[in-house]
Structure formats: C-alpha cells, structure tokens
C-alpha cells in the first residue's frame, strides 16, 4: 500500500530539477521533504501528485502507473494542497471547502453535512464560513484549503476504504505557531486513520518532532532518507545548508532541538 516514485528525473530546458529520486509513502506514514531553497522539494511533490510528468522514471499508486489512472479516479485516493491559491471571483469559504467533496460516487451525500461539520471544527474555520475566500488573510486561506483537502479524503469508515494519500507543499508557510501545531497534529491523526502523508516543510524542529521519515534533499538529489534522528544530524545539515547547525537532544522535552 504505497505511493511511490522510482528513479525519477525531471528536467526543463536541459536543467535537471530532480535527479534520480526514489521516495515511498506508505499508508499511515508521515513523510517530510526538507532541504534548502531550490533543492527540488516542490518539484518532487508535483511529480508525486501527477501535476508534472517525469522526464524519466515512473510514479505509481498501489503499483499502477499514475499516467494510466484517470484524474477522477486519482482524486478519490489522493489530495494535494498547493502553496497558495488565487481565486478570481468571490466564492464563500463554505463553497471552497465543499469543493473537496469529490467522493459522491463512493459515499452517500447524506454524510456530507456531518463530514463538513467535522473538518470545519477540526480546522477551526467555523467563524470564517460565511466570509468570502478573497477577504481572508494568507494564513486563514491556508487553513480553509487544508479543510478542503481533509474533506476530500474524508470517509465514513477509514478502516475499510481504499488507501488515501495527502500531499502538502509548505502548508504551514503563513500559519501562526498555534495553527502550525494544530495542522501538524491533524496530519498525525490523519496518518493514524491510515492516510499516507507527504509534506514539504522548512521547520526542522517540527520535522524532527512529527515525521516518521525525513527525506533530505539538496541540489535536485536526495542526500539522505530515514527516521529524523538518523537524517537530521549536525554534520549533514551543516553541509546541506552551508551554515553551522547545532543538533541537541533536549532531555526535558525528550526531543531533538535544532538551531543555528
């Protein structure tokens, strides 16, 4: 049960943005892409989502190549949150979130109100519901988009449904620290519901605290891949970010603390 990219390269006008990358996201796993700007994290995520077609290699969902799955079918098992969304006409927040309900073929529409209610409460966007999307701040827009993504993957019985994957490109970029924590906790509970998560993130402390697996990228390649404690080492990070990085095990918090 996995979403997998095997030996993927992507180049545009002769420049390689991603070289020979292998990433596997299994059901229930929280995987993060970290690395300096321009390392190829977002491109790797776009290749994983099917938005970009790889120049070489193949992305597969449960062993089936992404290219041979229709967009409609794909939308039932994977949801993608882009960095930011620009909506031209005035849509209400409620309308935007409801667009996530693509599972009409699988799930009775009578369950939509309950599902909406649940994601709206979980993401704390109750009070934004009747506002227009364009009147929200960047952070509020991200929370609304996140709620839409959760609705897309919502199922009445998460034990017995097809595998689901959630891909997010810097979903916490505009969030304040409380909402950042909320979002990562929600991702953790999503993983407990068997959803495989792939997230591009910059905050290494949160990466160390929440991720099951870290993919460290630099200059279009994967430098290291594995559990946070193995990958996020002072030597490796200092080399990749070209600046002195200190990694300590904080006894009181019982977690890694990374700072410069």
């Amino acid at each position, binding site marked *: 049960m996995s979403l997998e990219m095997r030996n993927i390269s992507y180049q545009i006008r002769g420049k390689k943005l991603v070289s020979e990358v292998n990433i596997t996201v299994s059901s229930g796993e929280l995987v993060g892409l970290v690395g300096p700007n321009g390392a190829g994290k977002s491109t790797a995520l776009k290749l994983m989502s099917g938005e970009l077609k790889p120049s070489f290699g193949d992305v597969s969902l449960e062993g089936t190549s992404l290219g041979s799955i229709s967009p409609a079918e794909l939308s039932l098992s994977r949801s993608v949150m882009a960095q930011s969304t620009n909506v031209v*006409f005035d849509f209400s927040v409620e309308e935007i979130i409801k667009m996530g309900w693509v599972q009409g073929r699988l799930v009775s529409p009578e369950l939509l109100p309950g599902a909406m209610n649940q994601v709206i409460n979980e993401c704390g966007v109750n009070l934004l519901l009747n506002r227009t999307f364009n009147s929200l701040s960047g952070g509020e827009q991200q929370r609304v988009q996140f709620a839409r993504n959760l609705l897309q993957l919502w199922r009445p019985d998460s034990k017995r449904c097809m595998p689901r994957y959630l891909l997010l490109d810097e979903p916490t970029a505009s969030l304040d620290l409380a909402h950042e924590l909320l979002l990562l906790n929600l991702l953790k509970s999503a993983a407990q519901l068997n959803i495989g998560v792939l997230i591009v993130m910059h905050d290494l402390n949160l990466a160390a605290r929440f991720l099951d697996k870290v993919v460290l990228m630099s200059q279009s390649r994967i430098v290291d891949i594995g559990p946070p404690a193995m990958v996020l080492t002072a030597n490796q990070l200092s080399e990749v970010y070209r600046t002195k990085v200190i990694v300590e095990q904080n006894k009181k918090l019982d977690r890694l603390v990374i700072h410069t």
Partner: protein
Amino acid sequence: MRLDASRVPTNFVPNLPAARFIFLTVLLIFCALAGLGSGGVLIPLPDLLTGKATYLQEIVFLEIRSPRVFLAGFVGASLALAGTVLQGLFRNPLADPGLIGVSSGAAVGAIAMIVLGASLSIPAWLQPYTMPLAAITGAIGVTLLLYSFANYFGRFSIVTILLVGIAMNAIAAVIIGLLQYISDDAQLRTLVFWLMGSFGRAQWATSLPAVFVMVVASIYLIGQIRNLDYLQLGEAEAYFLGVDVPRAKRNMILWSAAAVGAGVALTGIIGFVGLVVPHLARLLLGSSHQVTLVGSALIGATLMILADLVARTVMIPEEIPVSLVTNAIGAPFFLWLIARASRV
C-alpha cells in the same frame, strides 16, 4: 467552538436563491410577451386567442414577430452563457466570446458571402441558408485554427490562447477590410449592417436549426458546473479534484464557439452581452457556477429581447441595429462595474 445549526450545510446543492430565479423567469416571460405584442404593428395578445385579431396581425405575429423574439431570446442566452463559461475557464472577468475568434470568424464567412456570393451560382432554395452556413463555417474554422495554434505553441495555456486570439482577430480584420475594399456600394451597406447585428432577418426556416445547435451547446455547457467551479481554484487544483483539464478546456471552448457561432451566423455581431451579463448574474446570484450559468442564460435572453424591442420601436417605422442598443446599455454598465471593483 460549536457550529451553529443554521450554518450546517444540508446538501451538496446549496439552497439556490430560488426566489431570484423565479423572479428572473417571470421577468423573461413578461419581456417576451411585451416583445411579441409591441412593434410597428401593435398586437394585443388576448385578441389572438379570442379570434378578434386581424389577418395582418396574425401573419405578423406568426411569421415575423415570433421567430424574431424566439431567436433574440436564444441568441442572448447563448452569448451570455458562453461569456460566463469563458470567463470561468480563463479565470478572467474580461473574457468574452469575441476573444476566441468566433465572432470575427463568423464575420469573415458572412462578409465573404455578401461580397462574393453573387458570383457563385447558388440554387434558390439554398439562398436563405448561404449566409448562416458561411458564417458558421468561418466561426468554426477560426476557432479550430486558434485551438490548434494554442495547442501547438503553448500546450494550450490560457495566455497563449489570448495572444493567438488577438492575432486571429487581426488576420480576420485584414480579410474583412480587403472584402470591404472590393465590395460595391450596395454590398458595403449590407455588410456594414450585418456587422452591427440585427434580428430583422429572423425566419423560422433558419432560426430553428440555429436554435437547435444553441440548445445542444447550452445543455453541454450547463453540465460543466462542477468542472468550472473546480477550475476557479486553478488548473492544477482542478486536476487534483478529478477534472481532466485539457479535455474540459477543449470541449468548453468548442461548444462555446458552437453556441455563439450559430447565433452570430444569423444575427451578425452583437457586442457586450457576453461580457456584461455574466457580471450581472454574479452580482445578483453569487459566483458559483451552480447559479451563474442558468442565471446568465435567463438574464441574457431577457436583455436581448428587450434590446431588440428597443431597436425596432425607438424610431418606428425605421429600425436601428440591435448592437447599438446593447453597446449603449453595456458600455456604461461596464464602466460602473470597473468603478465598483476599484472602490473595494
């Protein structure tokens, strides 16, 4: 934080502003009746039913007035619907059916027929259809050309379509200019009036096939509600939500061209309806395509019937081109929209 019960959405289809739709429908029926009754020959509609109408009134009603109001309604609805679809597809509030080359393509076809038609020996029974057929051929030709160029140059990106559209319109303008230059005085007068649009040529024989095309195209376009709503989040997001984006774009452009081309072929070029009515619909009903598609069709039909009524009654027995009326109403309204948008 508990959710207040009244806010809980009850269904995927939101509570449509039903009252407004009923109002718009009633308004459309009222305007259609006014359009049928008024004009150079006044026809009190109850008289037709009670048999008190004169023979002249009956003939005018059946053979002139009815096809005209009928055609005006469907052309207005198609232009407005195509405008809404293209604005949604391009995610641009300034998109208009003229942008994808339909109108200029139709104009090239129709004007070529006006200027060169006499030198072709066309059988008499085909005569009423030659202009519409030439216009439709032109509309489809230019749209296909635009489509294949845009596809070839820029993988069908929206910016490429806009730029290729500008080039296509310029090429069409050159051909039209050339035809104008070689035309004689009578032809020149005919083509100038064609370019200004009119429902004066409406007859059942040509209106019915055109309306059939418009209805089929409109049904297809109204079926695109979800795809259009998803596209508002961006093309990538629409794909993530299950839309086959290249296919949806191609089909929507071609069906919009069919809807507009079928109308323009009979009536000539009518400006501003496709641009302004979608804004009016959004203003009255909201932005979701669940309401704007049907809403703009209703408003477009109503406005076009009214514009035609004004065009043929403002200086009886003369008739002014309907495009003068739509432009006179549309342009100030458009300015008001710009002012309103920049106030925010």
